[in-house]
């Protein structure tokens, strides 16, 4: 069950986020990041957020703004070396960080979206990132058990949406966005363009509209921030 009129402003859509929520945010190294939704999330000043994302942008840019604004309690993701603020905040004990290998991270989100609570993978087996995980041997090889990831809200970046929320992506901006769209209670999509429903080729749509709750047309199409 989802609302019929999904087109919204970033500010109105962001009113669904509460203190302490878990929020998934798409993007890889600032590409495919929903910058205007992140800006709106910063403006809500909601605190104690758990942020599930590949990285945390750069220092003070993209997702980095959430850390600068002290809204983060925990980060679950893959690669924070690009933003040295993360390692500094972690060393000072201000935030918790859970590192997950990138492929396991992607699959955990996909699994979360499609009703699979956990899965086995050989990635990280025997390493310090796998040492606390349950293992099982299949066909002579040892695998670690990974839990899937879900969130209260997902913020994603698409290229085009129709009025229903069928979404297409652009080049490597796809990355985690279609996966996160599936894995949250509420998904908010920032898109560059909203086209007439029925005008997209049904064979080419990447994210079906049933995963989308809010569609926000971006004001300033500038991927370089």
């Amino acid at each position, binding site marked *: 069950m989802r609302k019929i009129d999904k087109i919204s402003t970033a500010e109105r859509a962001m009113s669904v986020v509460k203190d302490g929520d878990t929020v998934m945010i798409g993007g*890889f*190294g600032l*590409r*495919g990041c929903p910058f205007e939704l992140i800006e709106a999330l910063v403006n809500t000043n909601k605190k104690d957020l758990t942020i599930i994302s*590949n*990285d945390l942008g750069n220092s003070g840019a993209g997702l980095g703004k959430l850390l600068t604004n002290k809204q983060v309690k925990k980060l679950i993701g*893959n*690669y*924070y*070396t*690009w933003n*040295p603020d*993360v*390692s500094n905040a*972690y060393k000072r004990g201000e935030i918790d*960080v859970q*590192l*997950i*290998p*990138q*492929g*396991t*991270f*992607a*699959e955990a*989100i*996909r699994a979360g979206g499609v009703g699979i609570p956990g899965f086995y*993978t*050989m*990635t*990280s*087996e*025997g*390493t*310090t*990132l796998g040492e606390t995980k349950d293992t099982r041997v299949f066909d002579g090889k040892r695998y670690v058990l990974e839990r899937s990831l879900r969130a209260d809200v997902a913020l994603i970046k698409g290229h085009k949406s129709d009025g229903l929320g069928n979404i297409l*992506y*652009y*080049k*490597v*901006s*796809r*990355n*985690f*966005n*279609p*996966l996160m769209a599936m894995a949250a209670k509420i998904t908010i999509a920032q898109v560059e363009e909203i086209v007439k429903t029925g005008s997209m080729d049904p064979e080419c749509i*990447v994210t079906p509209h049933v995963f989308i709750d809010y569609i926000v047309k971006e004001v300033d199409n500038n*991927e*370089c921030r």
Partner: protein
Amino acid sequence: MNVDDRVLERRIAMNVAKLYHDLDYSILMNLGIGIPSQVSNYINNEYVYLHAENGIVGVGPMATGNNIDFQLINAGRQPVTECRGCVYVDSAMSFGLIRGGHVDVTVLGAFEVDQEGNVANWIIPNGKQLGVGGAMDLIKGAKKVIIAMKHLNKNGKTKLVKKCSLPITGYKEADIVVTEKGMFYFENGRIILKEIACDTTVEDIRIHTEVDFEVAEDLKQMID
């Protein structure tokens, strides 16, 4: 980086690339950050398709000037182009290709490789890094693992060590290690030096290497 370093890195990249010059089949190859990313400059075979784990199957040459599209970067965040027949995939599909054994070869850098072929390349404890990236997925999932690295670290100590001292990325996963001094093949628990650089000798390599290795009967010369 001084000129000598650049020359040595180019030699390493060229000698990895030459392994894939004459193929009568196509392969999917993933290149890590650093020296491995330079391998693409020397591949002259259109049937070597490059995979970037942020979602590209079919990476073309580096983008420059008007060719730069800010939404088309590789996993090292460098602007790239599409090759003919390029496909974009989401991150789960991208790593499904890796984990599922569909990536034929990955070329990775490393801090250390040891006698058993264990590779340490993801983190130096208490350093500035905080991340793991795709290294653990690639090292376990790719069919062949080539390590492209300098023979010595910045302190002049060998990176081919008896036993890794840094956190391991993958156990017994190295298939070939290419340094500026030689090409070492890890085969059934043995390490065999099969090619040697023009400016060194087996004796010199032994001095700068902790692992025990054999020398191939038909020891060849690396290209330069």
